[in-house]
């Protein structure tokens, strides 16, 4: 972190260098599961940069990781990409030039989410096979969908899915609105739901470690991008993620 920040401030103080306002905003593309944490991380980063004497302008674009991958591959301008899994990061890295390697951002596990009060009386993963209940998952190919599939395969449950959502927050919204009876989401999502959902832990034996990754891209703001990645992986940044229900990056 210190190296990155030092580098950016050095550039900032250099009259011909790349200060934030000369290179445009720092464009961050982040997975939907990171919505709340990333908003706080951006705030923390801006504060840190301000105390170092540079004013950064951050543009945060939140969507499903797969949607963001499509945007990146279609040439969307971006400086930082945070993916909810390593697969999508690898697919992006295969085409888009990175500024350094992708690094683990945080990790979490999968959990069963139900509307507040658990009106359908869900007791475990086996209930997802009940055709009478309204069950939602993330789409296959979307990180939360692939993690959920892994959990279901491990537990031998064949779910009767009523809807596949494009990102985990859309799925969680259907739970908070009581449109669905149960869904598999990230444990970290529960922290952001302010008690509007009930949850049920998935046994560790069939659970997965859902690790998100972050990378600086070789965009128009590589130094600032690296500084941001360094910040989120620093003790300060990790504290923000832990505060939002994530486990620290390994």
């Amino acid at each position, binding site marked *: 972190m210190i190296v990155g920040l030092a580098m950016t401030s050095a550039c900032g103080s250099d009259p011909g260098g790349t200060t934030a306002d000369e290179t445009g905003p720092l464009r961050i593309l982040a997975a939907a599961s990171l919505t709340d944490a990333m908003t706080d991380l951006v705030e923390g980063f801006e504060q840190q940069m301000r105390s170092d004497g540079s004013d950064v302008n951050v543009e945060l674009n939140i969507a499903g990781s*797969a*949607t963001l*991958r*499509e945007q990146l591959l279609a040439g969307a301008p971006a400086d930082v990409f945070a993916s909810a899994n390593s697969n999508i990061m690898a697919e992006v890295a295969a085409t888009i030039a990175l500024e350094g390697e992708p690094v683990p951002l945080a990790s979490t596990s999968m959990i069963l989410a139900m509307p507040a009060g658990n009106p359908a009386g869900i007791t475990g993963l086996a209930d997802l096979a009940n055709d009478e209940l*309204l069950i*939602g998952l993330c*789409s*296959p*190919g979307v990180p939360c969908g692939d993690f959920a599939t892994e959990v279901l395969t491990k537990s031998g449950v064949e779910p009767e*899915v*009523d*809807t*596949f*959502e*494009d990102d985990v927050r859309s799925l969680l919204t*259907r739970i908070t*609105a*009581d*449109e669905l009876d149960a869904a598999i989401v990230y444990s970290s999502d529960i922290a952001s739901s302010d008690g509007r959902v009930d949850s049920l832990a998935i046994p560790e034996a069939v659970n997965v470690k859902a690790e998100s990754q972050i990378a600086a891209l070789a965009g128009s703001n590589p130094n600032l991008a690296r500084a941001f990645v360094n910040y989120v992986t620093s003790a300060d940044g990790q504290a923000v993620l832990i505060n939002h229900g994530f486990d620290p990056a390994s």
Partner: protein
Amino acid sequence: MSPSISSPGVRGSGVKSHDRAGRRATPTAIPKAVMVPAVLGLLFFAIPLIGLAARTPWADLPGLLTSPVVVDALRLSMISSLAATALAAIMGVPLAWFLARVHVPGKSIIRALVTLPLVLPPVVGGAALLFALGRRGVLGGPIESATGFLLPFSIWGVIVANTFVAMPFLVITVEGALHSSGTRHEAAAATLGAGPLTIFRRITLPMIRPSIGAGLVLTWARALGEFGATVTFAGNAPGSTRTLPLAVFVTLGQDRETAIAISMILVVVSLVVLIALRDRWWRNL
């Protein structure tokens, strides 16, 4: 979009400026200032189709179009769009008749309400349907607790979403036809002693039959292409709610060739519908 499509058929019946073959008086000189933007406009519509055609794996098309993903989506799309068209016919024609023939105060508000889905983002329509007919909706809640029946996440939800978005096309087409056909024949039938229902069935409906046909085809085409309201209200699950447009959305990020193949079906069907309708309308002028 729709008013310009419907106008030749429904309101232009008195205008004979060009015949069925499309011959018309060509101005002696075409001003460049008009032609250049006109050609740009044409290219603007043509280029995306060229892009799609260029990316289409023509040789693999038969295999792609018979894959289970496409066959499932096609079946759902056919059932839901035809059911929506049938619902639109049952409710939309009487509604159009009401708008054209019955004089009540505040009709412009009623007409705005009926045609609102034409301009409303479909996702807003889907959300509104959810708030009304979803499990916690003002109507959906009581219905579910009384009967156990729930529209969202089923093909019934898809049909409702399709009908909501597509029916206005039928209503405005038929209403326009009713306005331009006038009430002379209906009045004559009434003086000969025909009852109101007989007049509606024997005089009014036959008179506007071509427009009803055109409106139904347009309604079907719109229902076939419905995405936003469906995905919001009915959800997205293969075999129960994933219609062709939803399948494009899903496969675009995973299996682009399939997405392109489905897109080609939708483009071809839509083009055929529009060309066929145009032809029909010209004939009816």
